[in-house]
């Protein structure tokens, strides 16, 4: 079976969405109702940057399972998704906790024991899969992956001879996730979202998905959005739910707002790499299931670390 949604189905699914100008603000505990077990879930940001951590945290707390998750580069969020059982399939170009800590023992444990799949594509291939999905076409042509064993593992892609030049090319299939999870610096109650700095693949991901859940550092008025419409990166009609979650990427970073909370990250890595099962359970129990709210989770990270990360995050504008 092709991994690509036929155009008829793609259009039918989209036309069934309520794309009207309406307020969509919900509470963090409500977002799990937008995601079903087994859904394909696209994750915004990259590595430790603008990761929609609060959304992933909320899905794990709601005991979602069998999610097929795609992200350009996945880090400790991928660990948590595998370790909690929320996901058993990750589509990405790179999967570890971060370059500083070597190979993730959590990823290794799940993949090497066959509990979960890590489906590898080149970074550009992931981008072009989202882009094809965003554009409403079944594929995009690229050149990377040709000649490599990365391609040998990916029967989903098709090698062709270019009908114009005769050159070899690779067609990568469109990826249209059921749901996209994206964290932004600000958006209005309708979902018009502005993203400062690094965009990663979030715009294509948002347009490709059949449902978009946004967390935002803050909700601003529609008037503020309309004052600088060329700063809007995701249009409201692509968005289905919005949650205002300050520090919604913690312990990862959010451009111009906070840097990663490295002490917490190091604590996390030490815990899970020592024991990818028991350490993970300990982390999840303490930091995901026990807190009553996201604010309580932040409190467990610790005020001092949150403030340090905030000061460093804003320093980007000093240089």
């Amino acid at each position, binding site marked *: 079976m092709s991994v690509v949604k036929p155009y008829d189905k793609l259009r039918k699914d989209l036309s069934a969405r309520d794309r009207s100008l309406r307020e969509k603000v919900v509470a963090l505990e409500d977002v799990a109702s937008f995601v079903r077990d087994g859904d394909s879930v696209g994750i915004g940001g*990259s*590595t*430790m*940057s603008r990761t929609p951590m609060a959304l992933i945290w909320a899905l794990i707390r709601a005991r979602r399972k069998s999610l097929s998750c795609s992200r*350009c*580069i996945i880090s400790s969020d991928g660990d948590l998704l595998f370790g909690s059982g929320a996901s058993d399939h990750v589509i*990405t*170009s*790179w*999967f*570890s906790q*971060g*370059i*500083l800590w070597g*190979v993730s023992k959590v*990823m*290794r444990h799940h*993949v*090497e024991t066959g509990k979960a799949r*890590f489906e*590898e*594509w*080149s*970074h*550009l*291939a992931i*981008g*072009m899969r*989202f*882009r094809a999905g965003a554009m409403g076409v079944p594929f995009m042509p*690229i*050149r*990377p*992956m*040709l*000649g*490599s*064993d*990365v391609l040998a*593992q990916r029967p989903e892609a098709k*090698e062709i001879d270019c009908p114009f030049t005769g*050159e*070899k*090319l*690779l067609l990568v299939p469109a990826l249209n996730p059921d749901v996209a999870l994206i964290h932004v610096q600000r958006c209005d109650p309708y979902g018009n979202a502005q993203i400062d*700095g*690094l*965009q*990663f*693949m979030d715009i*294509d991901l948002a347009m490709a998905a059949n449902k978009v859940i946004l967390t935002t550092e803050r909700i601003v008025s529609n008037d503020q959005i309309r004052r600088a419409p060329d700063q809007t990166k995701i249009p409201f009609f692509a968005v289905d739910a919005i949650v205002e979650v300050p520090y919604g990427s913690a312990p990862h*970073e959010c*451009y*111009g707002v906070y*840097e*990663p909370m*490295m002490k917490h990250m190091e604590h996390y890595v030490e815990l899970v790499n020592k024991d990818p099962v028991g350490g993970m359970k300990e982390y999840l129990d303490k930091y995901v299931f026990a807190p009553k709210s996201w604010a309580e989770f932040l409190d467990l990270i610790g005020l001092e670390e949150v403030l340090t990360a905030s000061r460093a*995050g804003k320093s*980007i504008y000093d*240089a």
Partner: protein
Amino acid sequence: MTHKSDYTAAELLAILSARQLKDGMVVFAGVGIPLLAATLAQRLHCPGLTILFEGGVIGAFVEPGKLPPSTNDQRCTVRANMVLGSAEVLLLLQRGYVDVGFMGGAQIDQYGNLNSSFIGDPKKPKTRLPGTGGGNDIASLTNMIVAMKHEKRRFVENVDFITSPGWIKGNDTRRKSGLPAGGMFRVVTELAVFGFDEKTRRMKPLALNLGVSRAQVQENTGFPLEFDSDIGVTEPPTEQELSTLRVLDPERLYIA
């Protein structure tokens, strides 16, 4: 003149790789030694070096002591000329705007193919590694410099898995695979600097580092090397190179 005991292997790697860069170049740098070496070059002989990062950055000047933990972090954007999407920055490679791709490597073979995906059989791997990231894209699309530690288990005849293609199986196999542009250009290690034969595309020592013998290089390499009789020796790091490097990485994140 500095002596071998004055610097670490990682410092030597960073400095020798920095010297491969020329002012005015557009270089796509991976995290770790490449990022550090490119930033070092910028502060020494290449004030007009344009550094690209995978996260979507053109022309940044990373701040001393504020090395980013990945090339997708906001620290990569400091004083950049442009911040753009990560697919967009990778497409610059495909279009051809980039002179050099500059990466680290975990395992390399005689044709410059890199493996960062699997140790053992990919179907039932002994170790699942983190994967390609942008490595496959960079290696497929531009001229590559790789900086890596020289160990026999890392310099193998054929990699278990080609994550990032070098010259594939040598000769014109890269071009025939659909990759007519770019290819592995230099490999820099703490023992020597390597190029690739114009025809066979096999790895070839170009210069030994100070105090390193041919036998030592061969011993640490899992495939036979051919040494030119008049093979040169690289200049050891200068005091200026070392001190500038140490200012950039005061916590010795990458140069320990």
